[in-house]
């Protein structure tokens, strides 16, 4: 179709053309969906559309969103990481234990990030050098890390986290909550990294056509390894937000989070087949989940249905992705 259409490059485009360009963006359906959701919930509950409610939504998905931004890179590489739930728990435990003995913000944060990065690096090594499928590696790690949590804590809660350690979850700057700032800052960083760094560009190529990427001489293993390691780092940061907001850690902290993360990524529009997506997609997906869970509470749906809604959402998102591609006439 491109050559049939004369060089429209950099010239004025019609509104229809602009709309088409928007609709082929990976996150477009999710953004439209988000707008519809907000409209529906605002109409059905007058408490929904307020600044405080919206801020509380974003705060509630900050942990999820931060992790989704990193897992997004893994999915772009056509891999998957479902170990983040346990990993988050373990990072929080590490931070909590350091905080209990030293207090402060920096040391617990470093501990969380170090533990996360180590776990992420193990994932990455097993996938790249061990050549084990990522789903199996991270499924194994999901359970192994949960085992480590139980082992380290002996099954007891960690409580009494000092206030200065919790500042990433409870603090605010200029009236904006810290989790919101962290989430948006990391989002901007990931947008820049994926657009302007060689690694960021390579993730798209590695996930889009692995064979061609190999022929093009791209460092496929390094690209994938870094994505898995990055997940660890971001999970470390996210665990500090969690710790700050929750103030205590149980042995089941983070259970099921991995599903929400995958849901956020695919709902946002990053293709589970790799090579197509964006940081904005991950962020949008996380906010959509936040809006839905928040809206369900406002509508009085009991919390025990959360998991079902989440599952239905994942299926809905992947199904619409397939249908959208068929409608646009691409042969998958």
């Amino acid at each position: 179709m491109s050559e049939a259409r004369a060089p429209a490059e950099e010239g004025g485009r019609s509104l229809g053309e602009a709309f088409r360009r928007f609709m082929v963006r990976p996150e477009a359906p999710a953004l439209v969906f988000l707008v519809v959701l907000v409209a529906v919930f605002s109409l059905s509950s007058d408490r929904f559309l307020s600044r405080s409610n919206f801020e509380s939504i974003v705060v509630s998905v900050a942990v999820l969103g931060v992790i989704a931004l990193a897992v997004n890179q893994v999915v772009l590489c056509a891999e998957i990481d479902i170990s983040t739930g346990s990993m988050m728990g373990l990072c929080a435990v590490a931070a909590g234990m350091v905080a209990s003995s030293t207090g402060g913000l920096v040391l617990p944060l470093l501990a969380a990030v170090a533990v996360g990065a180590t776990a992420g690096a193990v994932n990455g090594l097993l996938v790249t050098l061990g050549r084990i499928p990522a789903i199996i590696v991270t499924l194994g790690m999901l359970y192994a890390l949960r085992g480590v949590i139980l082992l380290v804590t002996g099954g007891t809660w960690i409580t009494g986290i000092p206030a200065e350690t919790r500042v990433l979850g409870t603090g605010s700057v200029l009236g904006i909550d810290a989790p919101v700032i962290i989430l948006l800052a990391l989002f901007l960083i990931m947008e820049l990294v994926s657009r302007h760094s060689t690694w960021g560009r390579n993730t798209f190529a590695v996930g889009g056509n692995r064979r061609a990427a190999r022929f093009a001489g791209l460092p496929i293993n390094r690209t994938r390894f870094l994505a898995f390691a990055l997940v660890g780092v971001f999970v470390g940061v996210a665990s500090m937000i969690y710790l700050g907001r929750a103030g205590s850690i149980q042995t089941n902290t983070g259970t099921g989070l991995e599903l929400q993360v995958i849901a956020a990524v695919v709902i946002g529009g990053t293709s589970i087949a790799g090579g197509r997506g964006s940081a904005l997609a991950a962020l949008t997906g996380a906010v959509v989940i936040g809006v839905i869970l928040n809206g369900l509470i406002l509508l009085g749906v009991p919390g025990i249905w959360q998991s079902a809604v989440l599952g239905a959402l994942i299926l809905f998102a992947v199904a619409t992705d397939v249908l959208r591609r068929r409608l646009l006439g691409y042969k998958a």
Partner: protein
Amino acid sequence: MNLSDDPGAEQAATTADAPGVFRLRNVTKRFGGVTAVEDVDFDLRPGEVHALVGENGAGKSTLMKIVHGLYPPDEGALEVGGEVVEFSSPRDAEGVGIAMIPQELDLFPELSVTENLFVGRQRPRTRWGGLDGRAMRGEARRRLGSLGVDLDVTTTVKQLSAANQQIVAIARALVGEATAVVMDEPTASLTEREVQQLFRIISDLTSGGVGVVYISHRLEEIFQIADRITVLRDGHHITTTPASELDAEELVRLMVGRPLNELFTRHPQEAGEVAVEVRGLTREGEFADVDLNVRRGEIVGLAGLVGAGRTELAQSIFGIHPPDSGQILVDGEEVRIRSPQTAMEKGIFYVPEERRSQGLILPFSIKNNITLSILDRLSRFGFVLRAERRTAERFAKGLSIRGAKISDPVSRLSGGNQQKVVVAKSLAREPSILLLDEPTRGVDVGAKSEIYRLIDDLAREDKAILLISSELEEVLSMSDRVLVMREGRVTGEFDRGEATQERVMTAATAAAEGSREASGDE
């Protein structure tokens, strides 16, 4: 076009004594027990077009993959600029200026044209260290412009036509400072006009001193642009000669190793009733409004370029991708075929072109492959009967699959024997209508002539045969009638007497104004 019109040729004449761009010395490469190339010499001079010809499976692609660093040679050496080099990856080859445009384009369908040109390369950066998108797009536009095309560099590659994808692949290969470019069947899916555009690009390259290795099946193209021709046959180097000292007939004899009339077996006979007919068959973006019929005992050749929609048509009749509209009639009755199972029930069988990915279960034994499509006949209450083995042996013996036991996995067989297993599998089904898609691709000459004899036998047993082939000699020698497809439509029909190379090629390539829509490319 005549040789001296080509600026590259003059260039080649003046630089003939200069050191070569690269040289392969006594190269041998084996895969498992199969020797792909043996003791082959090949060299490329600056500014020349060196055609590499040979039948499928002669070792052309293997040889060039060695040059491009994908395979290390088992014996012999590769010299670049007089020095022996050892490549461990294509990146090393590109490092010394050897670029390759593979037959299956290695592009990134989801990424933009610009992005495709820059993957794995140095990118321009702005003062603040970010990637300079404007500069990249400008550079991309400039590169494509120098190849004489004007594409929207922000579109994703999957939206481009086959020809434009080819051009992006060439532009991509030339991003580095290439001194040698290997093109593997670059015109396989191009129209005549696009071919001429490609030739202009090639002559620009050679006049700039770049050497081009040109792999093609189309002899007229080779005589149009090649300065020298190297012929490979069954992995052996046969000759390297200036193009001006060969003619087409001689070249074919060198490639095939014997006169053509000894290769083919065909006993034309009176055709019977129409066995299968399609009317107005259409599948969006692949083929449109196709009418054709095949009679009992008749072989209908289906010629055309790669991507003309022939494979898609045959697979549609076989129920892999059902048509959007039109009718299929078997023995005069309209049938609805939505899956290969129904096609088989109607007596239709399709022998796919992609042997390894579509024709065979490679880890399965010969027996299990042959019987896979007839298990419904070979089982009772769902349990597979012992008669399976005898049935498989009968069909394997009929095709003289040599050097292997019936329980050996087909992955160990040579290409020719694998193809025989595919054919045996289709015969086991005892179809009345056979759709053969490039049945001799990648098969050695001996197996080829056996397959031709078999096809002739089948026709004489009153089966209706549709023979899809890109080798003109094959189509012309075997068919009772020849249909030609171009861009998804039937553009010519010739009886055995009136079908000639020129007529068929004209119908297959006649300069089409306006390019094909993108969707048919896959």
